[in-house]
């Protein structure tokens, strides 16, 4: 049993980035990036504004990882999602019956889940689950 640390530095960075989904949008080139940054990764502009990402989107790509990093039970399904707000978010799928349920263009939404542990403390963040098609 790992002795929990008194605090986790990543908690400080995770709020507000992770929980409130605050990224940036570049006023010069339109690039949306997440998490927040001071310089546009795409064009180098400093003319940026905070931009809230949408929780819904469609799967741009995915894979089914049977050899995941330590602390994960295989298989895990990493996805990169094109968000309705613009911008992309990389995360893991959750609550899928089988990995085969996930496809390119599947509609998904973020739900708050435990992601991992940092020195014995739980780290929470968003995962994606499939949205029922109408």
């Amino acid at each position, binding site marked *: 049993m790992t002795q929990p640390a008194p605090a986790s530095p*990543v908690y400080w*960075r*995770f709020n507000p*980035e*992770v929980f409130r989904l605050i990224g940036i949008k570049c006023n010069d080139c339109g*690039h949306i*990036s*997440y*998490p927040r940054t001071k310089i546009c*990764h*795409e064009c180098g502009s400093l003319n940026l504004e905070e931009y809230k990402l949408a929780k819904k989107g469609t799967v*741009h*790509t*995915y*894979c*089914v*990882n*049977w*050899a*995941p*990093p*330590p602390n*994960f039970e295989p298989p*895990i399904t*990493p996805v*990169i999602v094109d968000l309705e707000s613009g*911008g*992309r*978010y*990389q*995360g*893991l799928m959750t609550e899928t019956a089988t*990995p085969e349920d996930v496809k*390119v263009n599947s509609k998904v939404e973020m739900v708050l889940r435990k*992601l*991992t542990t*940092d020195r014995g403390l739980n*780290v929470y*963040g*968003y995962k994606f689950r499939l949205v029922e098609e109408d």
Partner: protein
Amino acid sequence: MRGKVAVIGVGMIKFGELFDKSLETMVQEAYLNCLNNVDKGIDPKEIKAAWFGQWSGGFIGQGAQSGQSLASFIGNRDIPVTRLENGCPTGGDTFRHACLGVASGLYDVVLALGAEKMRDKPSAESLGGAGSGGGAETGSHPAWMMGQGGPAIQALHATRQMYELGYTMEDFARVAVKNHHNGTFCPYAHYQFEVTIERVLGSYVVCWPLHLFDCCPQTDGAAAAIVCRADLAKKYTDKPVYVLGSNVGTDHSQLWDRNSLVEQLSSVKAARGAFEMAGIKPKDVDFGELHDCFTNTELMNIEDVGFARKGEAARMLKDGEFDMHGRLPINPSGGLKSHGHPIAATGLGQIFEVVTQLREEADKRQVKLKKGIGVQHNVGGPAFGVSVFNILSRSQ
């Protein structure tokens, strides 16, 4: 830099699970092989500077290495030595920096050497280290916290190649079949056996759509090159190989910042700049050693560096164009698929192959030379945002 720098010697050791060799032993063997490869001989003291490619440092248990490690290992502590790390292109970029050292006019003869021990840790730990690099614990994006790993990053590309370009897992498997076949002719390869499409597709799924035999192995190795001023090269060898172009290309270091996942702009930029420096076109190239860390990556590379239009590499491979005796042999050495990927040694191992081919000393795997030009390419780093491209030629 074009034509100002020549390779006068190359050396490597057989890549593999080298549990009996320390980092120092591997470095010394590659270095001595390299010295012996200078056919008219060289006094080691003529080497006036060195660059030490060493990617993983402490990540997978080889301890933090710096320039002094190489200086000490080779018993030459009177020269400046710099350690270089630049992701999976570390080896190719170590070579580039040695060339820059000569082209700057500061040094006449210099050494580039890369070495990596990947196998002292079990595969999962070694892969985890290789995939997440230093970012896993320090990022502010949750994806970093979850770890990615090389196979997952490339599998995310592969899925998109299947969706956008219509590529199939059979197309990917054909890369493994070709490179494993070539590797059976290379005495330095870690793997020296054939595989079939059926065997690739029947192997464990590591990260769908990639199977075990779509992935290069984790491997120990070391490789080196000695480069010098082009006008001095004939003093050391009858068969100098000249550097026509050399470039590093960069792109985003996060997958979600990139626009296309069927193209790695780092490779596009690296190759474009190197071809521009060399003043030649992709059609002038006789063969290439391209970074096949995963089978789908080789197809992407062939397109990105200008040897095929996007979406055409799979068909050209199927038609045999990239076979050892095809129109444009790709990875006649067997590539990373056969050699494994001891990260900092990989690029210099490819340089070894390109030089050996250009000197027509590649024995059973010798490709046919037309213009006498070969290329070396790596791509990697987080989100595969860094790439190196070197163009070598037997004429100046």
